[in-house]
């Protein structure tokens, strides 16, 4: 009997120890950047079929899984009314933190007010909204600037030190103007006489960039730098350059964003696509979750939390990304080491 009691006690102790150890492990896993983690976070995204947002979502999902947070995601898909309605639904469902990617800055102010009234911490992703507590976003100007510096170094080393640029812009969007301005400013730190020969509106689309670049190269094909305010713009312009039968050996291309796999393929081809002003969409999602935890714990947060940008080149891109088939993976250790700006060089 005594033996049975001892065995039972031992089993109970082992079970109790295992439970405590398991619970402790669970607690540790649920620890966020600091303190408690919210149980549920909701995100009302916008135009999520775009590969940029697919990768933001991927980073958000990965970080939420690491911290044991339940993530609920809805897509407003360019519809402001839908965004307000989805945000209200998520608040009613009792999410602990809400993230939104505004369809319109003015319209999203209503969500900011509603979240404040309900006492729900709110994070704005991408573009500022009046009355917001914090925004998680890249610095467009600084990203372009870094791409410009890296491109300038390539030009100085390989292309004779003179830069004549064809920039494919999207002037309807302020962030794109900032990227092109940043690129030229960065380029001129290395090549002071860098000249912008063509500044075109490619509408952010590869087919449009191809068409306008084809025309522009007819007017003046004496360029040796192509800069695209996104990857499709850069790749469309490169295609026009190739089709015009110009010498690719005397060209360097810099794209912006790194929203999908296209820039990796272009770099792997070994052609003139040498620089990517990368914005790491996965890191934007990752940091949205980190900021959710901070807000949930009542920590003081900056009005603009800047996510990393970095000039990837053919030499270093695989330190940050790997590609297997169509699936790319981010190297979190290296991306998280990239120094971040406290604020943008220009807004």
């Amino acid at each position, binding site marked *: 009997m005594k033996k049975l009691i001892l065995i039972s006690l031992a089993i109970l102790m082992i079970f109790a120890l295992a439970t405590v150890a398991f619970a402790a492990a669970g607690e540790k896993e649920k620890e966020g950047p600091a303190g408690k983690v919210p149980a549920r976070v909701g995100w009302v995204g916008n135009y999520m079929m775009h590969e940029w947002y697919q990768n933001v979502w991927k980073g958000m999902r990965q970080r939420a899984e690491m911290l044991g947070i339940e993530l609920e995601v809805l897509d407003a898909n360019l519809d402001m009314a839908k965004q307000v309605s989805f945000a209200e639904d998520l608040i009613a469902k009792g999410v602990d933190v809400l993230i939104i990617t505004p369809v319109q800055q003015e319209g999203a102010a209503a969500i900011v007010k509603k979240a404040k009234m309900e006492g729900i911490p709110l994070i704005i992703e991408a573009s500022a909204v009046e009355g917001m507590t914090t925004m998680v976003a890249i610095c467009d100007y600084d990203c372009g600037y870094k791409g410009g510096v890296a491109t300038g170094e390539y030009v100085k080393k390989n292309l004779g030190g003179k830069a004549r640029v064809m920039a494919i812009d999207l002037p309807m969007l302020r962030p794109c103007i900032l990227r092109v301005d940043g690129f030229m400013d960065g380029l001129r730190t290395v090549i002071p006489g860098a000249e912008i020969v063509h500044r075109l*509106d490619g509408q952010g689309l590869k087919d449009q960039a191809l068409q306008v670049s084809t025309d522009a190269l007819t007017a003046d094909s004496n360029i040796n730098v192509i800069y695209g305010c996104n990857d499709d713009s850069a790749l469309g312009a490169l295609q026009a350059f190739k089709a015009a039968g110009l010498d690719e050996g005397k060209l360097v291309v810099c794209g912006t964003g790194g929203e999908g796999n296209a820039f990796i393929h272009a770099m792997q081809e070994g052609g003139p696509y040498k620089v990517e002003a990368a914005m790491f969409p996965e890191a934007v999602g990752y940091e949205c979750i980190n900021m959710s935890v901070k807000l949930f714990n009542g920590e003081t947060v900056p009005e603009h939390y800047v996510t990393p940008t970095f000039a990837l080149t053919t030499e270093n891109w695989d330190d940050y990304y790997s590609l297997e088939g169509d699936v790319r993976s981010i190297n979190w250790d290296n991306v998280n080491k990239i120094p971040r700006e406290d604020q943008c060089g220009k807004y």
Partner: protein
Amino acid sequence: MFSSESSKGGLLTKLVLFNEIILVAVLVVISAAISIGTSQFYSTSNILNILRDSSMAIIAGIGMTMLLITGEVDLSIGSLVAFVGVVTMDIINKTNSVFLGVLAGLGLGAVTGLVNGLVRTKFKVNSLIGTIAMMMILRGSVYLYKLEAVQNYHQLETFYSVGNGYLGFMPIPVIIMVVLYVVFLVILYRTVPGRRLYATGGNEIAAKISGIKVDNLKILTFVANSVFAAISGIILVSRMNSGQPNAGVGFELMVISGVILGGTSLGGGEGTLVGTLVGLLILRVINNGIIILRWNQDLQIVISGLIIILAVYIDNKRKVARSKIITT
């Protein structure tokens, strides 16, 4: 189609009656004006660029002209161009066969046209509404199929040549366009089915009474229109060297604008392929000229819009003049 009327008058009458002559004059004036601004405009390379780039819109314009002549319209061709491009590139990647990829692209075009035609003729849905719905279905479907651009993994030179190659000095897309254009010029003006298109669009009830199978003819025209758009999509994907799900945005409006500028009536029963060719070339030359003159690119949209209003105004004047000549 105005041959019997034109014989009644002299040169002035012909000028009034033939919209195409006015359009050619407009094209010449615009080209001359741009050439004064910059000599690069009339360089061989720029002319070949304009022709190569216009070939996709002109090919789609052949189908759209025939469809508008029957009194119908198709707004889904921009989305179809994107979907065909993505599917074609993907199939070639998987099979390493340009033939199978192109077949899949053309097949997708044919099926889309068939559905558009059946929705119009059997469900009696207005083609403006039906093809807007198809535009949404196709754009959504291409994103469901592939969220990001399909890269060229096959690296087959044959495929790259479709959009970027030359036969002699002539770009291959231009040759494809010219062949299709000549064949359908003959079909439209020298064959019974061609005349039936005009009869159907001019007066559908009269066409039915005279024994034309209007529904079948319309379905066939929808299919032809979508296959033409699919050919444009295949050329575009070859030119871009990747299948872009976001390609072809606004393509349908550009094609329809050029066709209307060329004198084809939205009401059906009227229109010529010559007008379409010149109308689309005018729009392309304007876009090209604004860039090589280094003007503000926003002017592309403004000037194209103004030209279309002017063209419709001239067309209305021409119709009034024609009716007066015929009645006197």
